[in-house]
């Protein structure tokens, strides 16, 4: 259980603290209170600039909303609170929308320029050939 909850933390945070947490708290019984505390910690770490990973903004938002949904779900189930369950559903929906939304193209209007040294890493598209050489000659597959 604790390993699953630690997997929700940012990678940098896990590199620094996960082994310690596992050593200290791995054998402890993780109840709903501790699970919510760890989920809160994961949400906090994702939002804190110190540990924020360099993923796309919508991925970070989706991760934060998924964690919020999980925390609210746990709290709602543990406390029999329908309002928290509704919050969990709303957060999960928003997370799914954030993940599904298309990223706006940043390179709108860009064209490859073969003389531009900065474009060296790009592979130029092969010019259109209206009469390409066939990969297999006609009748080659016939026995």
């Amino acid at each position: 259980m604790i390993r699953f909850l630690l997997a929700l933390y940012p990678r940098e945070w896990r590199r620094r603290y996960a082994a310690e947490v596992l050593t200290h708290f791995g054998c402890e019984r993780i109840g709903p209170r501790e699970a919510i505390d760890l989920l809160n910690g994961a949400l906090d770490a994702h939002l804190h600039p110190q540990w924020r990973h360099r993923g796309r903004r919508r991925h970070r938002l989706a991760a934060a909303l998924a964690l919020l949904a999980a925390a609210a779900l746990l709290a709602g189930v543990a406390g029999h609170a329908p309002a928290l369950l509704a919050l969990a559903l709303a957060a999960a929906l928003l997370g799914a929308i954030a993940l599904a939304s298309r990223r706006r193209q940043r390179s709108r209007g860009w064209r490859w320029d073969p003389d531009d040294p900065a474009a060296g890493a790009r592979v130029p598209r092969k010019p259109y050939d209206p009469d390409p050489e066939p990969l297999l000659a006609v009748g080659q597959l016939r026995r």
Partner: protein
Amino acid sequence: MGGGLTDLGRFEEPSLLVLTSLADQPRHGYAIAKDVEALAGVRLGPGTLYATLSRLEARGLIEGLPAEDRRRPYRITGSGRALLRGRLERLESIARTGLARVSGT
């Protein structure tokens, strides 16, 4: 590096407790949690504890020592000690005044 604790929000009280726990000797995470529980009756969950430790470390108020058997002890720094002393003196002054007022003296 910020020096105060007031901008830590919900981590202000855990920060004060963790600094108090480390004031006499270095301790690792689990020992800090147990010491805080004995000292103040506050049970710090692992999420809150490590969020607090990372904030205090980032502010230079505590520092991690080399890990021993996957357990990293933490030690209070000079600036952490000075900040803790200031906060405790202020709390002591408030407690003294409050107690005097409650007693009606």
